[in-house]
């Protein structure tokens, strides 16, 4: 295996970890609220715009601004669930789809009106620094972003395992009737869950702004990417989202390396079709 290829795979793995964090948000929301968030990529794009705006106007490094952006997205997610989506939780899937598509259309065109059609990128001072690890070269920003994504994913797992709120949310996901019987405030917990999913998206968007440019069409592309990752890994499985993200990250660079970069999406969708048909619960999901 050539050094160049090894470098590419490492790049794919690290980028994939940031994708994972975004997909984790989708997985958490679906696993608990049982609503497929078709506006997921659009929310990520909003977070990327926020990171760009903070960097351009306040010279705030996206890594520093990340908690603030995550908090903003938490509030957005909480309000969305409380104000709009909650009334649709028990409605048929196609109605939920139209609702979230409408939200996505509003977000895409709202950002087109605000930021224009051009691509916006964040250029930090250490943007071109690399570390040498043996024969391999690692981009500093990519390594930092991947490490942060992994750290946040770990914190999220701790939250769901150790805190009372986390346990209550898992109870809603496991047995909704039981959760209501013991007096849990399901409406409130759903809104908190949507907020947490959105906060993942906020953090992932801040990190992604270091790696790729954002423009209005970034949103729909990221929505598709998030779906592929969670289905491949297993909807509702947190480890699955991490595995799926790395797998898709690597498959993207390999498709670009061996064939054409424009064909990378085709590969991801082919993997999605294979998984849906052969193992619909995903690589790490439990068979129901």
């Amino acid at each position, binding site marked *: 295996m050539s050094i160049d290829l090894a470098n590419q795979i490492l790049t794919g793995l690290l980028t994939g970890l940031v994708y994972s964090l975004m997909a984790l948000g989708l997985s958490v929301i679906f696993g608990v609220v049982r609503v497929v968030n078709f506006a997921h990529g659009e929310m990520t794009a909003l977070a990327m715009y926020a990171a760009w705006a903070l960097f351009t106007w306040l010279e705030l490094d996206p890594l520093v601004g990340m908690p603030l952006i995550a908090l903003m997205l938490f509030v957005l997610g909480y309000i969305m669930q409380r104000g709009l989506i909650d009334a649709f939780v028990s409605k048929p899937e196609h109605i939920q789809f139209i609702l979230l598509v409408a939200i996505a259309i509003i977000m895409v065109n709202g950002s087109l009106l605000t930021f224009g059609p051009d691509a916006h990128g964040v250029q930090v001072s250490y943007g071109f620094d690399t570390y040498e690890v043996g024969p391999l070269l690692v981009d500093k920003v990519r390594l930092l972003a991947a490490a942060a994504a992994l750290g946040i994913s770990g914190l999220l797992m701790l939250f769901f395992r150790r805190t009372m709120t986390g346990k209550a949310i898992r109870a809603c996901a496991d047995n909704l009737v039981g959760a209501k019987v013991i007096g849990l405030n399901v409406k409130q917990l759903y809104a908190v869950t949507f907020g947490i999913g959105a906060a993942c998206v906020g953090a992932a968007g801040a990190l992604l702004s270091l790696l790729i440019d954002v423009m209005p069409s970034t949103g729909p592309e990221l929505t598709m990417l998030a779906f592929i990752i969670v289905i491949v890994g297993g909807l509702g499985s947190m480890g699955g989202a991490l595995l799926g993200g790395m797998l898709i990250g690597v498959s993207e660079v390999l498709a670009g390396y061996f064939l054409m970069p424009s064909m990378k999406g085709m590969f991801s969708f082919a993997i999605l079709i294979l998984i849906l*048909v052969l193992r619909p619960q995903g690589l790490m999901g439990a068979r129901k």
Partner: protein
Amino acid sequence: MSRQAILLGGLAAAFALAPLVAGPYLLSVLVVVMYFAYVGQAWNIMMGFAGQLSLGHTLYVGLGAYTAAALFVHLGVPAALGLFAAVAVAAAVGGIVGALGFRFGVKGVYFALLTIAFAEFTRILFEHIPGLGGPAGLFLPVGSRDSFDLIHLRGHPLMFYYLILAMTAGIFLLCRRLVRSRLGYTWLAVREDQEAAAALGINVFRAKLTAVMLSAGLTALGGVFFAFYYNNLFPNQAFGMNRSIEIILAPIVGGLGTLFGPILGALILTPLGELITAVTEAMGFKAAGIKQLCYGLSLLAIVKFLPDGVWPWLRGRLGLDRGPDGEDES
């Protein structure tokens, strides 16, 4: 005569006579309305009647459009023959998607995502087929606009208007027959309770597969119309996710599973889009995105306040709730 028949006759007469008063612009809007009513009705067979959610339905529009257009451009095959190939290709691909999904028990949201995956896969695939123009597009040679050549589908906009009107009327009558047929009742049983249907001896797999293939084939006819009316095809527009969303909006906004729903939905949404453009331009907003933003807000309002669609609500208001034999059939 029942009220429903009066409504139907009045609607047909209004559309048939519309070109007498409508200028070229209004006619082009009506063509778009009819087109979305047609493909919406075709999609409705799969979702509204058989309960299988396809979110990648533009796959069949694109396949139909590209098949007929490529045969015409490369081999000179007239549209009247090419449409058979178009329907065959789309029905076959629909059969593959359906068979994979239903045989392996891919259900609900997962089946919907499978249909998206196939559409997106095909979009990127078509961008890499040089013979079909790739991302630069496939263009059909434009003939005389004064002829009325139905065999080659070249000619006057009026011909296209009456063609799509006939197609929409045809699919409406077909669906009307279908709902009351043995197959229609089979779909209804599968839609409402798959296990119970299977227990009654219904071949659930075959019923769902028939719905997908029929829906795909009919959608492909819409694709053939699309290709010869617009004369250009791009993978992004023929197979893009936005197109799939457009297809399903009319039947959902109009009323899922109803016969009038897709027509009413198209009659609301297309003029709404045009109205928003006119109003925003008149008010001096020229910025890109404002139209779609208003469209998204309107859509949000419609699903929020009339989640079952406009037709079931309107039907109650007009007193058309029950058909002559006491069944809900409009």
